[in-house]
Structure formats: structure tokens, C-alpha cells
């Protein structure tokens, strides 16, 4: 009798594990589908909460798929007119004060974007989650009143900044509400809180993301997107170096 119960328990666990394994990958695919679009235009404000004060940088961005994006900074005055162009794995920045276009490459990509908790590399990684991580469901939790699945992501490729991630996925809307990024040895490095989820043109999308580098003091960087439009007509000329100086 005991033997039969043990076998049954093992079988149930095996079936659950298999089911979770499949679900994990499927969920990642759904997240990728939800979070990516053919193209999008949005305005955003990035508030960097420092130890003593906070500063906000606003910008307008155009992006096509995950390979092309163009941003123009609107404020503060010191950053106004700065433009950023990303084409695949290349990034150029135009600074109006020097009237020069600088290519950010190699290890410069690992530097912070305007003192925020985000690096250029964080912005540049355009691979789908399914390409770089394998996922499994490890539990369930209620986050901000929403039922979530806890997804554990483990890198399946070598060239990835974070070896593992933990994601709290809204079961209904299939978008992450919280994301934790871990080092190789399991140290929690960064946390992202995604909120202001709205249905925009038929898809659920978190409009506010709070990035927090957990190793340093400060209250993180808040990234708010406003006026988002998906699947628009974007002229091809906007994703050219010539557009940086215009």
C-alpha cells in the first residue's frame, strides 16, 4: 500500500514537472508576444531617484520590431536635443552641444544611461526571452492583488548579462508584474516592478517600470511610458544616422 502511494506521488510530481516545464516555455512565448510589436511610438519620462534628489528626463521614441529604435530627448534643457539611434547591435548618440555623432560600442554599452539604473546594454538586448532562457514554473503568488505564476528563468546561452531571472507573471494578462535579476552565484542584483497595466490596441502593456539596482542606495529609476501607439506608419528615414542631426 505504502509502495503504491509512493509511486503515485512520484508520478504526480513527474507529470507536474513536465507540465510546468512546458507551461514555462509557453508562458515566455506569450510574454514575448505581448511585449513586442511590429512597431511602436511612445513618449516616456525616466525619473532617476538618487540618494539626495531626483531628476526626470523625458523623451519621444520610435521603434520597429526589436532591432530598430530612435529616441529624442525632450527635457531637461541639458539633455534636450540628444538623440539615440539603435540599429541591431549598434548604437549611436548625437549630442547637440558638441554637434557630433558618437557610436557607443564594446564596453561603453555597459555604462549607465544618463546616471540611471539602466545600462545601454539593458536597452540594447533585443533577443526574445525564449531565445536566451529556459523557464519553469516554481509557484504561485498574489502580487498587487493579481494572481501570478512565479517563473524561474535560467540562461541557456553564454552571452547573457543575468544568469537567472525570476518573474511574477499575471496569470490572466500574461505580462510580468515583477522581475528579479540574479548573478551567476545567485545574488539578487536588480528588481523591476511593472505597473499601470493597460489594454492598448488589444494587448496588455505595463506603462510604468521601476528599475532598482539592489546593491546600491537610492530609490531606483522609474520609467513611465505615455501616449503609446502600436503598429503605426513610421517612415524608414527615421532609423538612419542622418535623422540624428535633423
Amino acid at each position, binding site marked *: 500500500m505504502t509502495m503504491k502511494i509512493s509511486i503515485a506521488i512520484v508520478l504526480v510530481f513527474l507529470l507536474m514537472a513536465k507540465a510546468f516545464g512546458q507551461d514555462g516555455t509557453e508562458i515566455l512565448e506569450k510574454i514575448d508576444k505581448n511585449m513586442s510589436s511590429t512597431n511602436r511610438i511612445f513618449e516616456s519620462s525616466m525619473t532617476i531617484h538618487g540618494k539626495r534628489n531626483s531628476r526626470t528626463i523625458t523623451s519621444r521614441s520610435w521603434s520597429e520590431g526589436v532591432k530598430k529604435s530612435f529616441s529624442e530627448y525632450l527635457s531637461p534643457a541639458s539633455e534636450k536635443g540628444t538623440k539615440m539611434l539603435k540599429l541591431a547591435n549598434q548604437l549611436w548618440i548625437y549630442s547637440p552641444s558638441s554637434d557630433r555623432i558618437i557610436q557607443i560600442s*564594446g*564596453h*561603453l554599452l*555597459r555604462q549607465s544611461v544618463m546616471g540611471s539604473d539602466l545600462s545601454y*546594454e539593458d536597452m540594447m538586448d533585443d533577443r526574445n526571452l525564449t531565445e536566451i532562457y529556459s523557464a519553469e514554473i516554481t509557484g504561485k503568488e498574489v502580487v498587487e492583488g493579481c494572481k501570478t505564476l512565479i517563473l524561474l528563468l535560467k*540562461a541557456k546561452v*553564454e*552571452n*547573457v*548579462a*543575468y*544568469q537567472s531571472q525570476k518573474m511574477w507573471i499575471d496569470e490572466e494578462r500574461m505580462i510580468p508584474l515583477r522581475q528579479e*535579476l540574479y*548573478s*551567476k*552565484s545567485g*545574488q539578487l*542584483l536588480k528588481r523591476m516592478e511593472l505597473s499601470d497595466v493597460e489594454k492598448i490596441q488589444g494587448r496588455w502593456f505595463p506603462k510604468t517600470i521601476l528599475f532598482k*539596482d539592489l*546593491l*546600491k*542606495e537610492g530609490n531606483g529609476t522609474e520609467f513611465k511610458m505615455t501616449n503609446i501607439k502600436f503598429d503605426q506608419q513610421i517612415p524608414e528615414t527615421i532609423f538612419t544616422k542622418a535623422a540624428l542631426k535633423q
Partner: protein
Amino acid sequence: MLSLKLAFRNLIGAGLRTWLNVSVLSVAFVVMVFYNGMLDGWNRQAHDDTINWEVGGGQLWHPLYDPFDLLGLQEAHGVIENQAKKLIGQKQITPVLVTQGSIFPHGRMQNILLKGVQPEQEIIGLPTSNLVSHAGQEIPAMIGKRMALFTNLKKGDNVLVRWRDKNGTFDAREFNIVEIFNSNVPTVDNGQIYLPLNTLQEMTGMIDEATLFVAATNYTGGNFDEWQFKSPKYLLKEIDEIIKSKKAGSAVIYILLLSIALLAIFDTQVLSIFRRQREIGTYIAMGMTRSQVVRIFTVEGAAHSLLALGLAAIYGTPLLYLLQKNGIPISQTFDSLGVSIASKIIPVYAFAMIVLSILLVVVSATIVSYFPARKIARMKPTDALKGKIQ
């Protein structure tokens, strides 16, 4: 000999005026020797300390290594091949792996360099043997006194360090500070953490790799494999340039003092020739040629410098000796400039430097004495004898 005798007799006879000139000239000479001695002492100490702590008998760099391009460090590493291993075994070179990281002491982020060194190395003066004796869970690490002060870390403290491996993947672990070393060389201290080479190689996935090798002082080989040899002269170039600029700066002070003394000698000479026309006329009347009289007056002016050297020897020798014995305390503000400097500088009075300083004083005093004396050659002896103003 006669002119020298006459010169000294006249100088002593001039009394206070002579001693004022001589005093200023002697101060200029002592200051000159002091400044040059101090800078030479600093130069020697900086060279010795930098060789002992950092440079050794030269370094062998990976082709992509550039100490001024920290962002390029991620690519600047290569495999330690057989020849290098042989030289390591012979204690001719010691490998160092350098990579970038960040530490978070008390919640503040600071970018640092992680340096992997062999704990058993004896080529440079870093007390790396302390990295062996640790037996804890954390990674044993060693920092310098400046870094400890800046980060507020003490021996035995733990600090979180974040770095990226060779693929760019983040990793973070606690480091335990097992040693805080005290070095006069800020370039081995500021913004750097030392840990065992093997540990850093494992942490970064750069197994059996190094960024550079430090050679022993008796290393005679040059480049090998891809490693490019940089001589101590090349590596100490920066210190030499700093000392050179300091020497130029300090020269202003003693040149100013020397100029004041020389101006006083010049004035004294002009006055002497104006007031002693009868004496000049008598010399010529007694059969001396004009050039002989010019020589008497030139030697008289130049004799100021000899008296100044004598006076300088009387008070300068014990003073300079005392400074050499006790050293010159140096403000720690120099340290923050990133220049290798000890808390006390022991001046070095090189023989050549002293001889050159003596020559400078004597020759310049002679030149300023000669110019006014040239006027004697144009004097009419009869008028001079009558004491007529010419």
C-alpha cells in the same frame, strides 16, 4: 695671486655691504642645493618604491592591454603558455589578471579594478602571502590604506563585489578584507582590490589567463609569444616627467634669490669703479695694464661668491645634514594627487649637483662683476688719477 689678495682685502674692508651681498648669495646657494637634493631624494624614493611595489624589472603586457583604457580590459587577457609557465617557475615573472568590477561599501557604488595575483610571488612588495592564510567562505581580498580610507573598510570587513565574467554575465560575491597594506605608491592602491589569481581566473572564467606579467629585477628576456616587454624606464616615465616639471618650478625660487644677489654684486661693482677712480689711476700709473686692473675688479666681484660658498658651508652643511638625517615631512595632499611620495623625503645631495651649483654661483658672480669692470678699459689714466668723473 696678487689680485685675489687685493680682492679679499677690499671686500673685508667694505664691511657690511660685502656681508649683505655674501649672505644673500649664500642663501641662494643653500636653497639651490636643498631643492635639488629634495627633488633628487623624492625621485630616487619614487623610483625605488614604484619598482618595489609595481613595476619590478619591467612588465610584459598583453597586446590589447592599455592601463588608460579601462573599458578595454575585458579583451586584454591571454593564455599563460609554456614559456611563460617556465619563467614563472623560475620566479622570473609573475602573472597578474586585471578586470573591472564594482564594490558597494555601505550602499555606495564604486568602480574598481580586480587584480588577481599569485599569493606566493616575491617579485613585488605587495604582501600577497596574506591571501593564502584565509580559510573562510568569502573570497580573501587585500586593499591599500587609501582604498580602505576611501571605502571606510577595515581588516576583517566583508564587502559585496560585482563583476562580469568573460561572457559578460554578472556575478557578485562577498569579499573578506584579510589585509590592508601600506604603500607609498598610490597607483597600486587607489581603486584596486587584490585577490588570489586562481580565484579571479575561476570567477571570470579566464582559466590560466593573465593580463600582464611583472618581471623580476634580474629579468633579461624581452618580448615572448604575444607579450610585449615594457622596461622600467618606460613604466617610470610619468614619475620622471613629474619630477622634471617640479624641478623647473623650484628653479624659479632659487633663480630669483640668485638674481637678487647678483644684482647686488653688480651694483657694488658699479659703485666701486665710480668711487675708486683714483685707485684705478694709481694702479695704471704704477705700471699695471688696463686688463690687469679689470681682472683685479672682476676677481673682487667674483670673490663674493667664494665668501658666499664659505658662509654657506658654515651654516648650510649642518642644516642640510640635519634635513638628510631626519627627512623632510611631506603633506599628505601630495598623496591624493596620485604621485608616489613617502611621508618623509630623504634628500640626496649628489656630488655632481653640488659642483654644478658651485659653478653656477661662481660663474654668474664673475660675469656680473666683469661687465661693470670693462668700463675701466675706457678710462684715461691721468683723469682717473685726478679723480675726475668719466
